[in-house]
């Protein structure tokens, strides 16, 4: 018999907890501890606080990497009769606030502030990477899922492939920065009479960075050019992404180029050709002149 037309009601499921927010730049939950050093080993759910059913199933073990460390709670649902709705289920962004470094040590942070100011130097009209908050941005990104390659495919074997096959490094961005900064410091002190990168003059700093870029300086134990490529990607992201992520402070990056941010409705302007859009930028967190500081 084909196609029984019985109507079945929703089947209720035992509530289980899982995670579906892969990609936010926000920090990992403290309980899951996705720090650089204490990433849970594959298959170990033992010390995570997830409310997992204790009965292990075929798929459970290999699920561990997938489940651990993502940031919000959602369970598989049966949807029937109406669209599920709950008020803003975990998806609002989190505001990065200034404060102590979360990923970098103090020395690493000083080196990073010097580096971001060379990648995007200050000029009379626009602050450089440091004052724009690029180092803070990278600090918070490295502390979060990005820094731990949390959403990437991280199973081995690891083999160096062709350029077209893409990065195959076992290092997470967090590890790359930690090793890269240590190696940079070691290189500078051994070649510049004991001076660390921050103690060099801007011209000397540029020279070191340029040689790394060109492959003329090699680091021990970590790919110097790979480290520099990460900087070239991450620093401009900090300069141009929404200020809620900790960089682009006071929307300086956007003001520099004339990007109006998240202004959303340009219906009145699309047909005004060759006229510069006049309004200043707005961020997800609003604008400082809308929320004046207390006097």
């Amino acid at each position: 018999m084909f196609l029984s037309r019985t109507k079945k009601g929703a089947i209720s499921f035992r509530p289980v907890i899982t995670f579906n927010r892969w990609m936010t730049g926000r920090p990992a939950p403290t309980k899951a501890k996705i720090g650089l050093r204490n990433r849970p080993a594959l298959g170990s759910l033992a010390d995570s606080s997830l409310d997992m059913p204790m009965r292990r199933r075929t798929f459970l073990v290999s699920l561990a990497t997938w489940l651990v460390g993502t940031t919000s709670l959602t369970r598989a649902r049966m949807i029937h009769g109406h669209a599920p709705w709950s008020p803003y289920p975990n998806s609002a962004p989190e505001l990065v606030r200034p404060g102590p470094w979360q990923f970098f040590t103090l020395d690493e942070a000083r080196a990073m502030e010097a580096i971001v100011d060379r990648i995007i130097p200050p000029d009379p009209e626009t602050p450089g990477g440091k004052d724009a908050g690029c180092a803070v941005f990278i600090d918070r990104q490295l502390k979060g899922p990005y820094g731990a390659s949390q959403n990437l495919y991280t199973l081995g074997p690891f083999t160096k492939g062709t350029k077209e096959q893409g990065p195959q490094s076992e290092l997470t961005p967090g590890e790359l920065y930690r090793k890269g900064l240590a190696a940079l410091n070691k290189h500078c002190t051994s070649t510049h009479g004991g001076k660390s990168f921050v103690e060099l003059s801007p011209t000397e700093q540029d020279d070191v960075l340029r040689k790394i870029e060109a492959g003329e300086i090699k680091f021990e134990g970590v790919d110097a050019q790979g480290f520099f490529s990460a900087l070239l990607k991450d620093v401009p992201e900090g300069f141009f992404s929404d200020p809620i992520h900790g960089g682009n402070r006071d929307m300086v990056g956007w003001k520099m180029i004339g990007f109006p941010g998240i202004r959303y409705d340009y219906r009145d302007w699309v047909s005004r050709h060759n006229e510069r859009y006049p309004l200043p930028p707005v961020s997800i967190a609003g604008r400082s002149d809308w929320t004046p500081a207390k006097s």
Partner: protein
Amino acid sequence: MVRKLPRKDVVIIGLGWTGSIMAYELADAGLDVIAIERGPWRNTATDYPPGYAADELRYRIRHELFLSPSQTTFTFRNKMSQTALPIRSWGAFMPPNGVGGGGVHWNAETWRFLPSDFVLKTHLTERYGASFLPEDMTIQDWGVTYDELEPHYDRFEYLCGTSGQAGNIKGTIMEGGNPFEGPRSRPYPNPPQDQPFSHTLFGKAARDLGYKPFPQPSGNMSRPYQNPLGVRLGPCTYCGFCEWFGCGNYSKASPQTTILPVLVRKPNFSARDNSEVVRIDLDSSGKRAAGVTFVDAAGEEWEQPADLVVLSAYTIFNVQLLLLSGIGKAYDPAANTGVIGRNFTHQTTSDVVSFFDPAKFVFNPFIASGAIGMCIDEFNGDNFDHGPHGFVGGGYVGQVQTNGRPIETTPVPEGTPLWGAQWKKAVKENYQSALKPGTGVHGSMYSYRDVYVDLDPTYKDRFNRPLARITMDFHDNEIKQNKFLTDKFAEIFQAMGAKHVQKEYRKAPYDITKYQTTHLCGGAIMGSDPNTSALNRYLQSWDVPNLFVMGASAFPQNAGYNPTGTVAALAYWAADAIRSKYLKNPGQLINA
């Protein structure tokens, strides 16, 4: 222990564009339908409200709406002689995840293929002779014609509220539309979107050069619209955070804004989210699907029996599930046998970035929408004589202003240092007066014997199942085609008054790290011969007749357009065949 759920008439695997269309059509026919979706439910009001949907870092750079490679990925190599390695983070394409599928974050460029695209092999052989085609090219006819699909294209465009200017209504060429398109039964439901400055310049320059520019058909609403299902969409605000992002404004056609609000209220429809189908189950004969097995978010395994299975999990997941379920014969490129994984293709795109005098040109690149564009179609498909050029295929080219998001779109002239004061100065100077088209050159990729998908021998997903392995490279035909198109495109920018035009040709080897499009096609193709196709002309599996496979996996080769118009038309065409033919007599609709 696998737990068994009560039987359903139909189980749909994946609730993206095609899953939503099929679920609606089959529920509308009175069947009891369940859809099982790997990712989460997504809701316009709560998942991407305008207040924070415009977050370039979160959605464009960190890919929040997409599948996480930690969940599953693919391996890739250029040549059969190489070892494939895993794609650890997305590059060349970006697989969707979650209810709505790619419809949530697509651009909504809504094209129809050319009539000749559906009979490609026959058409090209008749016009140029068989020897004109490269020896290892494996292009085929589709088994379905443009005329057969026309009513279904029309349905999708009216479902979406597509904004555009018709070029050919029932054989009459219309001023301002695309004169090369196949005849359509009626105009688009909405007029074209308003065009920004760069588009009018492009249109004028193209006309001066003798071309016939027209506005790209766009699923971004040019005005408020109510579709035939009674669902309302609002006018697009040209916010410039469209592709990669969900539209918080209900202005972009997606399953959420067109079908799901009605579908989800049907008493004979239900859906299950955060649940991944791991296998299509066969009965003891091996010739009938018994249902599917899926794993929910807690790792619990469930069996969902059903009389009819619709596989609509997106191109490459379709192919992978067929291979993992042992349905159809796996393609073997050496022996040239088998069909599953065969004729896999992508797209051949390239960029032309042009720089204008900042004192004279202000483009406001951020005033943009995912599909707004001014295009020409002179060099698509077989719209021009390929005889003198020594290649086949083509594409549309156009100025498509999709965004001014500053991480992605701050072009600087070649030769500028990548950092430091000079870089910063160049970014500042060029932002308002450079053009970097969102789509640019959008060309076909035809199929070849050594471009295919199979299962990787080494790398596994989180369920310990083999990853799908992609073997793909560009062939000379596509490289030549791209050079030709890119040069023609650049001439138009030159004519617009650019002071510097930068051509970024697509070259071999195919590079998995550079985003091209998410228009993967083929691998489970349709056709009229079960020896060279996995599906018949109704997208029904030749091997398992109660299985229908939706999506661009059915394309025998890719054309020079975005796929979704055709993907959706094929879904309506298949649904129509199920409703009018299969339900009366459930079995093979075509005798091979």
